[in-house]
């Protein structure tokens, strides 16, 4: 398999005529996007290029959530000294492993004339092969020359061909051409404006669908120009979507869209919730991803099912919070909640309920704000600075439930405008505690889970699920987020027309994720670009 990949790559390198490299020097070409690789993109890329048994150990600078997605921050963040230091160490460690006695047979495609001396021809072959894969385009002559020369010097001084190669490879692995994904656009042939060059198209598709670097076939399709034809594009898109690796890509998307990284920064009060332990957060996150992918990809079902289904996948530790027996032998088992549990898809999963709560207390407002933003793309403005929240906290007074206390607070007109849109969602979820367990009472009082939103009354999580199921805002929000994720944009600033092609395909298919994905990326506008302002042709 790997031999075949290398052969295909070799043909790209040999007959590529530096297409990608030439693109940047081509007249009028512009860099229209610079996306810093995420930790997963980096790890997946290394695993694909060098194999899964190469260890990647180091820390990655975190992203920042912008408009609901951390993907948007990859288009605005740079690499700080501490971040580069870490990348540099990882590059050296990866290159050392790749050229080690253990791995070189598999990874180094040529035999040096002597293992104790420089061999420019073999070094050139290896560095141009990995250069193409890491930079997602062929190296320029100069990029290759400086690396071959370093490999030669180091091989000579150490008396070890592979040591020279190691340092040559390390330069590729810490180059900005690898750590950032450069999107290069060229003037469109038949219209105004710019379109992405073939290699940039390949990278955008691959990182969106597989969360990794383009494979050999995709690179070859970029090199041959096939990818820029509608038929060639469709062929590649169908191939990427037919692969099980689509799951990896969509996992990354849903992790971002559902804000599952929130688990990194929340804590639960073990005094109140002794069942909540370290592995719980990871399990809750995994449940959400598994059940989402089950609906979206395995069953190819209506995505709105996510909001109402009582089916999920659980492991032993989650079962204890859900209060269900776990008699399965394996690690994960499908489970269907009974109707009496009041569970409703994603809305009542431990992940969502726990992430948007206080350490020891549920928060209808936090849950409402999160659901509005995640599922409906409706962010809530920050509250005024001088707000008296003490009503909400006064559990010793006559108002026993959080509903009564919130109502008193929302009687204030300034507060009401937001709380009326937020609280009903959260109040309907009050039948579940801070870590997602079922409950009926708060401070001894029965909890009322009825709510009214946009003039419609409903009851509990199931009622909320049906309400959201019937809202056109949910599918539109999924389309908006996926489009913004693919392009590294602030979802709040994206025009609805930008993802119209995808949304229409989504609706027509009965809300199938694959239809949305294909609709988005085969939309003739998907690879259009506008030139960035204040360009300079030379540094």
């Amino acid at each position, binding site marked *: 398999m790997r031999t075949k990949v290398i052969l295909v790559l070799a043909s790209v390198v040999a007959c590529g005529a530096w297409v990608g490299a030439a693109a940047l020097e081509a007249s009028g070409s512009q860099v229209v996007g610079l996306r810093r690789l995420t930790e997963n993109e980096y790890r997946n890329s290394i695993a694909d290029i060098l194999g899964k048994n190469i260890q990647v150990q180091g820390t990655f600078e975190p992203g920042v959530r912008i408009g609901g997605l951390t993907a948007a921050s990859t288009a605005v*963040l*740079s690499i700080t000294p501490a971040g580069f230091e870490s990348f540099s160490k990882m590059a050296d460690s990866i290159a050392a492993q790749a050229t080690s006695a253990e791995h070189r047979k598999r990874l180094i495609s040529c035999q040096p004339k002597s293992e104790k001396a420089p061999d420019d021809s073999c070094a050139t072959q290896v560095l141009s092969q990995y250069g193409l894969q890491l930079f997602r385009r062929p190296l320029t002559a100069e990029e290759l020359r400086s690396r071959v020369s*370093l490999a030669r010097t180091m091989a000579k001084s150490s008396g070890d061909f592979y040591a020279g190669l190691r340092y040559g490879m390390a330069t590729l692995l810490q180059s900005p051409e690898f750590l*950032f994904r450069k999107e290069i656009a060229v003037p469109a042939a038949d219209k105004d404006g710019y379109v992405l060059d073939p290699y940039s198209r390949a990278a955008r598709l691959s990182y969106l669908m597989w969360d990794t670097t383009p494979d050999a076939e995709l690179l070859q399709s970029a090199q041959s120009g096939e990818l820029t034809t509608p038929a060639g594009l469709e062929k590649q898109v169908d191939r990427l979507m037919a692969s099980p690796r689509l799951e990896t890509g969509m996992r990354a998307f849903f992790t971002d869209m559902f804000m599952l990284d929130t688990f990194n*920064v929340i804590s639960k*009060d073990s005094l109140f919730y002794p069942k909540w332990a370290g592995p719980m957060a990871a399990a809750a996150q995994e449940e959400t991803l598994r059940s989402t992918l089950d609906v979206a990809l395995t069953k190819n079902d209506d995505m709105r099912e996510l909001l109402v289904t009582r089916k999920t996948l659980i492991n032993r530790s989650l079962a204890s919070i859900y209060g269900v027996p776990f008699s399965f032998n394996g690690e994960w088992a499908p489970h269907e909640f009974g109707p009496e549990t009041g569970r409703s898809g994603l809305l009542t999963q431990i992940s969502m309920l726990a992430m948007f709560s206080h350490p020891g207390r549920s928060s209808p407002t936090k849950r409402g704000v999160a659901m509005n933003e995640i599922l409906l793309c409706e962010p809530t403005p920050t509250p005024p600075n001088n707000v008296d929240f003490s009503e909400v906290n006064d559990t010793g007074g006559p108002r026993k439930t959080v509903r009564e206390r919130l109502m008193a607070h929302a009687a204030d007109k300034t507060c009401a405008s937001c709380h009326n849109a937020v609280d009903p969602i959260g109040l309907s979820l009050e039948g579940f505690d801070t870590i997602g367990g079922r409950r009926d009472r708060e401070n001894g009082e029965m909890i009322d889970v009825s709510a009214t939103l946009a003039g419609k009354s409903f009851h509990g999580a199931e009622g909320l699920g049906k309400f959201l199921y019937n809202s056109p805002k949910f599918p539109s929000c999924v389309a908006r987020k996926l489009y913004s994720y693919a392009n590294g944009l602030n979802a709040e600033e994206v025009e609805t027309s930008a993802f119209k092609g995808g949304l229409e395909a989504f609706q027509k298919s009965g809300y199938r994720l694959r239809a949305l994905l294909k609709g988005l990326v085969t939309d003739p506008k998907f690879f259009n670009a506008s030139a960035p302002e204040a360009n300079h*042709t030379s540094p």
Partner: protein
Amino acid sequence: MKLDRRFLLRGMFHGSAATMMVPFLDCFLDSKGKALAATGQKVPTRFNTFFFGCGLTKQLWVPKTAGQNYETTAQLKPLEAFKSKLNVFSGLRIPFDDNPNYQHWSGVAAAATGISPTRNGQFDSKTIDQQIADVISRGARYKSVAAAASGNPKESYSSLGGLNTLPPETTPLALYTRLFGPGFQDPSSGDWKPDPAIMVQQSVLSVVADDRKRAMMNLGSGDKARMDQYFTSVREVELQMATQLQRPELTAKVEIPAAPTDDMLVNNALPNIRKVVPLMSKLGAIALATDQTRVFNLSVSEPASQIFIPGDSLGYHQSTHEEPIDPVLGYQPRVAQYNVHSMELFAMLLGELDGIQEGDGTLLDHSLVYAFTDQSFAKIHAVDGLPILVAGGASGRMKGGFHVAGDNSTVSRVGLTVQKAMGISVDGWGLNSMETKSPFTELLA
């Protein structure tokens, strides 16, 4: 045999210190009695920041009288041991100009940059620690090091501006590994020699840096700045490597501790934070004493502090908004308790710095620690009167023991004073209404 300072110092760290006579040690002091490092340079003055969320309670922390000899207040009590090495600033003003009051952010940014922020969550310039690091860090292995005691990887208030936050180490083990793990050479070890592997890495970096011209081609202005930052970072790591080829001059009596055996639980629960802060502080202090870095930034929480005491279902930040003001006391009692914990955590850092002897004093005497927060009264997101505390003698440049009471000065005056004390040649600091050219001269020695 020629006696050089390096040789003598090395001797001291191998147990012969006890046999050396005190007058003999005078050769390490300059004419003013200030400590000299073995290079003949003065012990560098180090800089620290300490960030704590949600402020303090005005009635409980602001001393009744201004100047020296003020009576210690309830919330400053944990810092009493350091009173003579500490200055506290009350009544400082933070004008927003035309910008909004970004909740839990405008105060952070004003204290850290002297600029009212134009974007939520972003600094409009480098933060004060980086401005100072640009001047004082040449020669140290790391330009600066940040650590977050609650384990949140986004919790750092050390920034190159915009979204370029300098990432913190989030566990004691991670901090240890960065400072004393692979790549660290114990400067007191007898057989220290430059590591040739570093020279090889320098050649690798020089090839990477040579790609700059093409990497910068045809970029839009925003991306150009980001790519430029990448190459600045490459340059900084090159400098770091050059530094590592020189033997660091140990000036303090410290032992490099063993690695923390076990990555402990690091989260927002106060008992965990109370275990993590002293460990991180100790590692930071040793890093400063061994010149691994001259700038150490420690944060104990994010601005809207998520710290909670087990059993308190609301936690710190939510309490500031939801706990009623006690009609008799006139403040929020639970919030006030959390405030005191912040000062106890601050005292832990100061204790570690003050516990290391070097030259004519302690590491704290040769440092400045700038402690700041996000709100003066978190309940209503107020920033005027933001509590600021500055500890350390800055190698004799900063006096201590003062309460600088509110005369409606802007918070940027403290930042300017701190930079003056750090020996930074700067005339003014801050922007728009916070621009100032008046340091608190009474504090400068």
